[in-house]
């Protein structure tokens, strides 16, 4: 076991910096810009980061960061306060619980798991919105956001590659 392997991973590197990047990207895509008459898509930039945090290692800070990210998205997008916090925490908890099963899976399988986690988040959002407003949201925009979020898996993959082996105690 090398000394480098035992080196602790700074929370700022794997939690703080990605969280700030997600906040910035989400804000940037909320600007009212149109290209050739079409608005920007609105993917859930937080999803790859949340998925990667759950896969990389169990942490006491990560759930708090997930909640902060969710509350930030609620304030930015005007959704009910706490909606995205819950919708992000649910897949985080599920992936964290199945972390041992995900270890060593191929990239394609991890992408499928990521898609399932995104689906869980969207499904929870659909359910809570339906209960909150007494009306069912249209499935087409949800499907559109789901697709726009699923294609972001390479971001999660990159984060996992960077930090999964940063501390050998969590291999």
């Amino acid at each position, binding site marked *: 076991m090398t000394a480098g392997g035992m080196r602790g991973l700074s929370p700022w590197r794997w939690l703080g910096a990605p969280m700030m990047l997600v906040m910035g990207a989400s804000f940037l895509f909320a600007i*009212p810009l149109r290209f050739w008459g079409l608005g920007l898509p609105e993917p859930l930039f937080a999803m790859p980061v949340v998925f990667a945090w759950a896969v990389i290692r*169990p*942490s006491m800070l990560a759930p708090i960061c997930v909640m902060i990210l969710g*509350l930030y998205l609620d304030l930015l*997008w005007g*959704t009910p306060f*706490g909606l995205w916090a*819950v919708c992000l925490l649910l897949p985080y908890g599920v992936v*964290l619980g199945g972390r041992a099963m995900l270890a060593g899976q191929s990239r394609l399988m991890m992408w499928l798991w990521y898609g399932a986690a995104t689906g869980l988040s969207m499904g929870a959002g659909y359910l809570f919105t339906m209960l*909150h407003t007494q009306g069912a949201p249209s499935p087409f925009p949800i499907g559109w956001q789901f697709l726009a979020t699923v294609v972001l898996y390479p971001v999660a993959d990159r984060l996992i590659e960077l930090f999964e082996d940063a501390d050998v105690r969590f291999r």
Partner: protein
Amino acid sequence: MSLRDNPLGELKVPLTWTAGIVFLVVLIVSVGILLGDRREAFDTDEYGNPRTLSDRVMAPVGDALSTPGRLTGEGVEGIRGYFFAVSENRRLKAELENMRQWRDVAVALRDTNERYRAILGLKTDPPIPMAAARIVVDSRGPFAHSRLANVGREAGVKPGNPVMSENGLVGRVVGVTEGVSRVLVLTDVASRTPVMIDRTNARAILTGDGGPNPRLDYLRGQNAVRAGDKVLTSGDGGVFPRGLPVGVVVKGLDGRWRVVLAADKAPVDYVRILLFEDFTQVANRAALDQMNPPSPTPGASTLPPPVPEPVVQPPAAATPRPKAAAAVPGPPAATPAPKAAVPRATPPAKAAPPRPSEPAP
């Protein structure tokens, strides 16, 4: 005894368990926050300090970030206008020619309307003051469609004020602070707008579902709507003034009647916030409550006094309660109660004259 010698010193709580416990606590807190949210109330007090504060921070940042894009768009539009000036000039001339004919029709209709109003003594709505604003943040997710406009309380904006683009209704204000207003767009899942079909005057509720085309719910009447009908605000409920253009009816893929919003014809970058106050907000309710009901119009037809239904006394009940049974049905059948009958009879007499035709929008 030092810590190293303590048998409990080597005891470590597994990180997975502590992380799991923290996760559960955070999840419970988040669910509590979500359940405590009162966004659907759309009230100033319910909007909350976190939202107010974040809107105040986000609006100037969004404004600054969107400036390069806006300036680029204006530049591209300027270049396009320069190269297509001749064809644009031809199109505008044709449109002007068409509009001149409509102007003559509008002048004639206005004259007719004024005469009708003078004859009927109609009290028309006062002109609505407006505040111009620019959209600086725009969320388009499936669970929320809202925008931040860079005008707020200092311009007199209040929650509930309608918001329009140059083409039609955009939504209404749901949160206001200094310099910023949050606009709930008609397509938001929580948006409900009372509307009417221009051709048939049929009423409906425009219900947002997160998609681009909100649906028409609670549509009343048979054949009340067909594809291509114009949809306007009905003014019911007093949230919106009557007659604001909303869009055009289409048949959705799901077989429901939906509306292509007029505001979607062009990017919604600049908006007008109507500082609209309906009658219920303006009226002095305390003074109205103290007013006596008006006396009936002389000579007008009134409803007959109410005739109480005959009470059939069961033979067994007649013996134990003779006084109570005789006191209720006897006298009112013969003598009408004047105070109770007068106000009920007045509204039908007022509603007798036929309604004037709707003014042209």
